């Protein structure tokens, strides 16, 4: 039958491995990965190894970075060490970001998958529900939730999750709607697969690439949210976090730039790293780019 194909033995190339190779060839993505690893390592050191107390007053207030040996990044308006604050404050920020992203993804994928797969009545109801949530400006809604239900890390994570799932839901729905109509799904039904198998084993794996990208980006968004809430004074008052440092020093901005600049930079670099990784994944999963 196929004459010339017999000559070459071909190795299986899984789509996943191809994506991984693409990712590794993407320089910004690698930079993001390295940057994120460094940040996570530093935060890990601050949270679990370093015994320093971020609330301890170590020097004169608003001391310039490097003014004394033990304050390489200066002190804040109360004389607390900023570097210690950064190392200690990263933990809560990242933890809230991760758990909020998890909540977002779980709600978003469940709602979106049901709406997209079952369509019709269920889709209509779920999408109206989603639209309702999209009408509320996310940060404002999160503020209201946190104000009403006391600002703890858990409330903050839940609030961020509640306000940001609609986008994931819409994306999931769109992917499910698209894939649902592809012939391989019909083919699976033709060989006797039931709804469960089709949703979880056939459609979801194929819908996953854009969802992974969006989940990654959601971590970045959640970190920004946490920072925003803390900045507005809605952070957990008992936990040092990057946003809180900015919010607390905001009033003295024009007297001393460093207590605000460094935590902001930390947030910026973390989100940057995450979004570079997200972009890299996006390119890696994009079959159009792979052709080139």
């Amino acid at each position: 039958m196929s004459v010339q194909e017999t000559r070459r033995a071909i190795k299986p190339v899984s789509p996943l491995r191809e994506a991984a190779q693409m990712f590794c060839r993407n320089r910004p993505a690698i930079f993001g990965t390295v940057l994120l690893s460094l940040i996570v390592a530093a935060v890990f050191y601050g949270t679990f190894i370093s015994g320093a107390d971020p609330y301890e007053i170590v020097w004169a207030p608003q001391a310039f970075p490097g003014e004394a040996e033990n304050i390489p990044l200066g002190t804040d308006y109360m004389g607390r060490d900023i570097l210690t604050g950064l190392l200690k404050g990263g933990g809560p920020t990242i933890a809230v970001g991760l758990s909020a992203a998890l909540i977002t993804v779980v709600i978003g994928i469940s709602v979106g998958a049901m709406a997209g797969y079952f369509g019709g009545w269920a889709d209509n109801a779920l999408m109206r529900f989603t639209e309702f949530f999209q009408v509320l400006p996310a940060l404002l809604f999160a503020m209201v939730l946190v104000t009403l239900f006391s600002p703890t890390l858990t409330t903050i994570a839940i609030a961020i999750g509640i306000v940001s799932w609609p986008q994931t839901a819409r994306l999931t729905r769109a992917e499910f709607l698209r894939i649902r109509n592809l012939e391989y799904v019909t083919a699976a039904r033709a060989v006797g697969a039931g709804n469960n198998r089709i949703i979880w084993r056939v459609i979801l794996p194929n819908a996953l690439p854009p969802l992974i990208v969006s989940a990654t980006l959601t971590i970045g968004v959640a970190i920004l949210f946490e920072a925003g809430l803390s900045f507005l004074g809605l952070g957990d008052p008992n936990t040092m976090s990057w946003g809180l440092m900015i919010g607390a020093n905001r009033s003295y901005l024009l007297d001393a730039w460093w207590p605000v600049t460094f935590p902001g930079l930390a947030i910026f670099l973390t989100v940057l790293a995450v979004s570079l990784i997200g972009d890299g994944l996006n390119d890696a999963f994009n079959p159009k780019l792979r052709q080139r």
Partner: protein
Amino acid sequence: MSASTKPLLEVRDLAVRFELPKAGLFAPKRHFHAVRGVSFAVPQGRTLGIVGESGSGKTTTAMAAIRLRPADGGQVLLDGRDILKLTQDELRRARRDFQIVFQDPYSSLNPRERVGSIVREPLDLMKVGEPGEERNERVRELFSLVGLRDDQIALFPHQFSGGQRQRVSIARALATNPRLVVCDEPVSALDVAIQAQILNLLRRLQDELGLSYLFISHDLGVVQFICDEIAVMYLGRIVEYAPRADLFRTPRHPYTASLLAAAPSLSRRKSAGYRRVSAVRGDPPSPFNIPPGCAFASRCPNAQTRCREEEPVLRQFGEGRVACHFPLD
């Protein structure tokens, strides 16, 4: 028609309609009748072709017949058992007897699965043979049956050409030893050279395995090559239904005649001054808004007043059946 043998599949009065988006909040629900009262039979070991242009409802008919989309009326009898009445569980078990090969070799295989497990999936889901070696052996057997090699079993779909993917698709359809295979335009996405390979393969498999095919196509050349009987569909209805030789020798419905006139041929030469004389005019009317009377009347060269008022029914005429007030001799 082979009246002596009992048909394997018999479809009676099948109807499918789609719900259209409502015009307003309180407007009545609107429907689009994609398949209207379609009846046909696939004899054991033979091939029935359904031909028609896009929008004729041919694919919808096939999909509804094997319950890959819901039907809104009629019966589908496989060996006397009504498929439309089976419960979900019964249906899943019954599916081993009827399988399908799709049109698009690119979207019909899950890109994240190895082709070996794609072919194996029906065996696993319908619990055919012992799990493990027996099923793997069956997969190897199927691969060689459709002209693929053992060492390709572990590959992913994107590593295959269109023709080879279609072979995988056929292997999957044959895995459970089905009796009926629905072929939904299986070669229309392929280049002619590959198309010939697949058509020959389908015919060989039919001879070797005694398969029955329900073959959907828009290409009369392909249909003539592979089908024993042919049903011509136009806007959701069968307009002519006849054995191959008769349909191609003496088309009775003007629509069939115009399809034949437009089918591929090397004998219509520009050098010989060939001109098309009475090609049908215009496009098919919108399926959302089918006029009363004969649906083909607006394009028919022989249409008369009666055609625009009264819808013709399918009736015996010559060797076959035709739905036309003024069939051709």
